[in-house]
């Protein structure tokens, strides 16, 4: 019963989401990881807009507005933490962040 356009556009959203996830897993730089999360969130937003237009309702777009707002709040905190981190470590490589470990070197 679903018209094909919704499935196709949901497919685009799913691809976008997967690209973000792959970026998150492959990248080792914190900034790029934050960008990847942003892509995943926007993919979810796109899926909401698509679903909203399928149901002829504003719900999807309302949800998208909330998602954008939340992504902005998250990135603001993320970048603040990155700045803090940069003063402690000379690199943005997540593999260098290994101070939290089990047992005795805390």
């Amino acid at each position, binding site marked *: 019963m679903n018209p094909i356009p919704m499935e196709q556009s949901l497919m685009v959203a799913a691809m976008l989401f997967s690209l973000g996830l792959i970026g998150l897993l492959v990248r080792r730089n914190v900034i790029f990881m934050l960008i990847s999360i942003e892509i995943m969130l926007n993919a979810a937003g796109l899926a909401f807009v*698509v679903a909203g237009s399928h149901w002829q309702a504003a719900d999807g777009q309302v*949800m998208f507005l909330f*998602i954008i707002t939340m992504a902005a709040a998250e990135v603001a905190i993320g970048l603040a933490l990155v700045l*803090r981190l940069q003063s402690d470590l000379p690199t943005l490589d997540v593999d260098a962040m290994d101070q939290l470990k089990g047992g005795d070197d805390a």
Partner: protein
Amino acid sequence: MNTTDLIALSPLLIVGLSAVAILLLISLRRNHRAVATLALGGLALAMASIPQAAAVAPHHIAPLMMADGYALFYSALLLAASFVVGLLSFDYLEQRGEQREEYYVLLLLATLGGLVLVGANHFVSLFLGLEILSVAIYVMVAYARSSPLAAETGIKYLILAGTSSAFMVFGMALVYAQTGTLEFGPMAAQLMQMEDFGLALPGMAMMLVGVGFKLAVVPFHMWTPEVYQGAPVPVTAFVATVSKGAMFALLLRFFAAFEADEAQPIMNILGLLAIASMLAGNLLALLEDNVKRLLAYSSIAHLGYVLVAFLAESSFGDEAVTFYLVAYFISTLAAFGVISVLSDGKSEADRMEDFRGLYWRRPMLATLMTAALLSLAGIPLTTGFVAKFAVVAAGVKAALWVPVFALALGSAIGLYYYLRLVVVMLSPVNPTDDSNSEATATDDAMSTRAPNPAILRPKKVPIGPAFALSILAIFLLGLGVLPTPLMDFIKSSVSELR
């Protein structure tokens, strides 16, 4: 929005307004004591408004929120937990000369997020509550700016929580695409009419990633030990209780709308997660020497236990879940409260070594810690025992044999590491040989490091934490001996759920 809506929402409004009032107060004058008083007053006032809200319950604030007995019970639980965390935080922050005032804004906002979550009846309120809670916690986790671990902990939590939120939102979009509604009740009704869930099934599975992350069940538990270790102790206590409790309340409400056999595929996944959490959490805790990390793994196991009662999908199961969460809140807050009191301005008392001989130095604190650990282990006469009994009874009643067996096995393993810490507290301070220590592989690593000198030097417990800890101690043992009044109260509160 009419007056009844406002009364039903008064706990949320009061917490939100207190956060704004604190922001204004900080801009006028920085005074840690005044700000903390205002925050605790706001939480107490919000708690005092719950009876008024209960008078108009159940009230549906269309379409976003539901203010019924269930939501109000959990609201009271979250507010009480935040109050305890606030009391612990004051003295913790007082010892650290940093910007302390904004912490309370975050504490109140995170609590507000939790309150939205327990009343959520709609995807929008779910999302908003979850994000208000999470974004405030990102900052709280990294709040101790002088600690070299803070920023690392914060960014790790942020990236993982952000990813899990993305999964959750994408899942919501798929469920919405299938059902065309964002409200829980109509959504469940829609899905039950369809012969199969279609897109809603992968959607719900993706939502489980977000839920599982917040609850820290295996395999979404990786962040837990790191964040527990790196965050300031009161924040760890908050993450362990309020954040997880609010999420669980939401999970219960969401699935209560479904018929038992409709959501079977999802329930099977959750069953696997529960079993994995109970076993992995307890086994990994065996290897830990850091008490905060140990409690992290133990909390993973505990959320697995609660899931067993959740899987029972009966009102008896709902009661068991609620009672277990209350017991878990009390025991966890007591354990972290003791760690927080033992910590000083420079370091936290989170190593096993810091607890050596605690009975001889701080008998009261050691006794409370023991009671909390025994409660977490589920030993009779503590509230943890009654709670675990209720969970097992719910599991047996629903014939969930495999999860119940995993629960029993997990509890048996868990006993070892809880008692290990009790034994360490009983041992003398400077062991002359290894025979009276508990002969673990890391013993040599521990003995090379002297115990924290400030912990050896007894100091008086400040009034705030002393008050919080005595209340927790009373509940810890009181509910273990006399659980019936709370049991009955929970029964009447959660009965509206199904």
